[in-house]
């Protein structure tokens, strides 16, 4: 029997050898390392040819690693680390359903008695009381009633030919024609290959109401077919709501809209048709050329079916696992996620400074995202902001910076946008982040965990009743909120559950026009939406969320990005997150040296992630570690 020393020596002999050892066949441990590297850097187990290459004498493993640290699979691997941390996707309940954007459709009878779909958008201003803010054809004209929630009732009747011609028009829309911007579109979209990503309208959008005739043009309410970028303020003359005791004109079941105080005060103003204000203030605003400022739907429901797209894309949007008919909101949500995915892929593939994940004004867009930022994003603005003369959005992503030539059909064409605009800041100003983390505090909280590796853990104290509104000092709340509120304040100028920016010119942090006259009672009108009565003092109302730090509120999301990335713990946190992901376990106190090594590799190389990963893959914990029990090794087992 061999001595223990001999057995142990044989067992451990291979442990210090690397695969590049000239002339020696790889050990099992070296094969295991190569397989692990393939899984981490290629996103799959190695192919036979790759194993054969590895086995050749003189194989340069470090060179192989360096080569694969530039590939798309490496970028995907790194992206997965951060997507696992941030979980940037949202359920369908958070779908983007914006009435100024959604073109719903009603089936009516044309003058010949044939069933026809007519598209319209809710809230569209029109110049007659029978249909203002409603479907353009009244129940009296169609026999069909469209309730406020989209429910249809009644029996369709042929529409008078003159009304039909006057109130509706035919359009060749963007979802049917890739050349929809030309004077006479001809390139009609047909059925697409379901295994690849493409703009693919659901069958209901491709056929007429008879169920089989291919749709060549769509009929749409005349107002929706308008194309101006701006239109004059519309005043109906109605100041008070019509009484509910008498039938509404034309048999409509919803009350006609009244003229707002803002519109009465600005009767000669022009209104932006790409803002939400446009649809509610101007009868001259429509869906633009080829209806490109609107999303189609096959019904009058809240979030109607629109396009086919995958439910599952764990291998990337270009490699879908399925394909299904989905709603217009699903379409937008899907591309929001993909913006973050492509932004992260670009960051890692090009080894950009990892700090720019939070701070960069660049992003990646494809056709659908270009359409969203050009035509849809502004539709959430400006609601109650009109009281503050805020009627045209000061956007997080300036539509002027969206490539004009990207059309909605270019779903696989991605462009890097170097500068979204002055308010943009990495993922922090992307719709998917702002929707996933809808509140100021939620946004700050997730950043605190994911990029500072810290967690808010409350004191184990009894919460006593208190009237103190300031959570930074209130007993029991203070432990977390003293840190959280100032961080959350950076998001005070980005509306909650939205991406509408609140510029200081319209929404000063301290606003004398929004001071509360009574404690804890909201100030007048729209002030209550934007200003917090609890912090109204010194003759000023305080912008909501800003009380944690008015200065932070004015610095915006870019401010918190700067603070986090300048934090001494930032590099260590990146190192920990990446190290834990690659090693498949939580770091412990034993890992401090590795954490420090990785952190230094990152910070001393311009915060380029590739340097960190290279250091990790060469670290003993990755390269030399094995799982062989010493007792088994002593009996001759190989690692």
């Amino acid at each position, binding site marked *: 029997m061999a001595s223990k020393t001999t057995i142990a020596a044989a067992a451990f002999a291979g*442990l210090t050898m690397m695969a590049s050892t000239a002339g020696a066949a790889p*050990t099992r441990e070296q*094969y*295991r390392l190569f397989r692990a590297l393939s899984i981490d850097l290629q996103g799959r187990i190695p192919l036979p040819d790759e194993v054969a290459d590895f086995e050749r004498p003189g194989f340069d493993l470090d060179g192989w690693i360096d080569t694969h640290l530039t590939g798309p699979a490496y970028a995907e691997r790194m992206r997965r680390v951060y997507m696992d941390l941030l979980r940037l996707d949202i359920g369908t309940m958070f779908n983007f359903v914006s009435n100024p954007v959604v073109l719903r459709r009603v089936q009516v009878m044309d003058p010949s008695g044939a069933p026809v779909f007519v598209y319209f958008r809710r809230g569209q201003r029109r110049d007659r009381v029978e249909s203002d803010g409603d479907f353009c054809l009244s129940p009296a004209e169609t026999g069909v009633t469209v309730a406020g929630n989209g429910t249809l009732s009644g029996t369709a009747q042929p529409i008078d030919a003159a009304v039909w011609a006057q109130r509706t028009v035919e359009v060749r829309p963007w979802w049917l024609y890739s050349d929809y911007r030309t004077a006479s579109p001809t390139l009609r979209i047909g059925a697409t290959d379901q295994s690849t990503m493409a703009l693919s309208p659901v069958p209901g959008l491709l056929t007429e109401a008879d169920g089989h005739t291919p749709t060549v043009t769509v009929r749409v309410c005349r107002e929706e077919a308008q194309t101006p970028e701006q239109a004059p303020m519309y005043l109906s003359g109605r100041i008070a709501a019509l009484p509910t005791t008498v039938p509404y004109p034309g048999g409509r079941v919803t009350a006609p809209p009244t003229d707002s105080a803002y519109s009465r005060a600005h009767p000669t103003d022009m209104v932006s048709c790409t803002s939400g204000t446009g649809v509610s203030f101007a009868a001259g605003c429509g869906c633009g050329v080829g209806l490109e400022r609107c999303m189609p739907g096959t019904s009058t429901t809240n979030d109607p079916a629109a396009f086919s797209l995958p439910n599952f894309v764990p291998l990337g949007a270009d490699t879908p696992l399925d394909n299904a008919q989905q709603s217009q909101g699903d379409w937008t949500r899907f591309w929001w996620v993909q913006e973050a995915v492509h932004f992260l892929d670009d960051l890692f593939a090009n080894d950009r400074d990892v700090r720019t994940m939070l701070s960069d004004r660049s992003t990646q867009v494809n056709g659908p995202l270009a359409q969203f930022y050009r035509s849809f994003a502004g539709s959430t603005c400006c609601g109650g902001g009109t009281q503050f003369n805020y009627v045209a959005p000061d956007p997080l992503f300036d539509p002027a910076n969206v490539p004009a030539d990207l059309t909605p059909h270019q779903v696989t064409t991605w462009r890097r946008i170097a500068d979204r605009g002055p308010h943009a800041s990495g993922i922090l100003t992307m719709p998917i982040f702002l929707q996933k983390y809808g509140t100021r505090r939620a946004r700050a909280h997730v950043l605190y965990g994911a990029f500072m590796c810290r967690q808010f853990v409350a004191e184990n104290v009894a919460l006593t009743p208190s009237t103190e509104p300031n959570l930074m000092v209130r007993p029991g709340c203070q432990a977390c909120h003293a840190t959280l509120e100032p961080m959350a304040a950076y998001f005070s100028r980005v509306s909650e559950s939205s991406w509408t920016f609140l510029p200081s010119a319209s929404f000063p942090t301290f606003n004398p026009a929004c001071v509360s006259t009574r404690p804890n009672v909201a100030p007048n009108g729209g002030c209550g939406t934007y200003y917090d009565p609890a912090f109204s003092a010194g003759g000023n109302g305080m912008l909501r969320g800003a009380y944690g730090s008015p200065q932070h509120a004015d610095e915006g999301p870019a401010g918190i990005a700067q603070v986090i990335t300048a934090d001494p713990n930032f590099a260590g946190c990146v190192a920990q997150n990446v190290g834990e992901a690659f090693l498949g376990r939580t770091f412990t106190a034993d890992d401090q040296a590795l954490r420090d090594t990785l952190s230094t590799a990152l910070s001393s190389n311009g915060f380029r992630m590739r340097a960190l990963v290279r250091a990790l893959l060469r670290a003993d*914990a990755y390269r030399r570690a094995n799982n062989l029990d010493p007792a088994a090794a002593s009996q001759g087992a190989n690692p």
Partner: protein
Amino acid sequence: MTNTARTLVVSALVALGCNGTPAARTPAPDAQAPVSRPATDITPTPVTAIPGHESLAQDTAPKEAPRLMPAETLIRSYLTLFGGLSPIAFQTRMRTTTTGEALFDTWADYLSALGIPDYTADIPRAAQTNTLQLAAYERIAVALCERAVQNDLRGAAASAQVLFTFDLPAGRSLTDAEFATRFDVLHRRALGYPAALAPDTRVPRFLALYRSAETAHADAGVGSQRRFTGPEAGWAGVCEGLLRHPEFHLY
């Protein structure tokens, strides 16, 4: 004490027949109550300085637990094992049948069981396996291996073979040596290293599995409930064993 140093000493003790239990990784500070220990003055002593330990080989490698292959990587690996089809093409290929095999459903049916994270519901990535996950591994491995047998082992040209990139002798069983050669092809493909470097039991164990299936399917054919021939069933089983193997899913 670092992992490496601790392992070094522990390994040395074990190698010498001393009683030693590998220490667990130090828990995070929050995971256990603080423990106070009396201060002691222990002078560090190299193991080699201990009489009788001068020539002791030392395991200086740190120890790491194997981690579970990410579900995305697993799916992509399945795809490459069957010739690099797209997921939808793979699904179509697995489902297409004229014999009611019902080998595969849709990827969507398996994703949750495979442990893929669901960001919409904040369901994290699975870090450890469960029985359902192993059932999903089996479901997919059976589909992949049986389709590969049908594609590769029924006279396909070498260029058309996707997984079983070898031939079978006509009209006779493989010898043990012939089995071992072919097994090595699959072993390398699935586990990334030669079967010769596996624990000694690996080849005999899979050979026994192969022979067992070969015997069980000896009556395959018309009138039999067993559609695969002996060699086909044998290689399907071997393939499944490798694609469901812990070493396939852990790394």
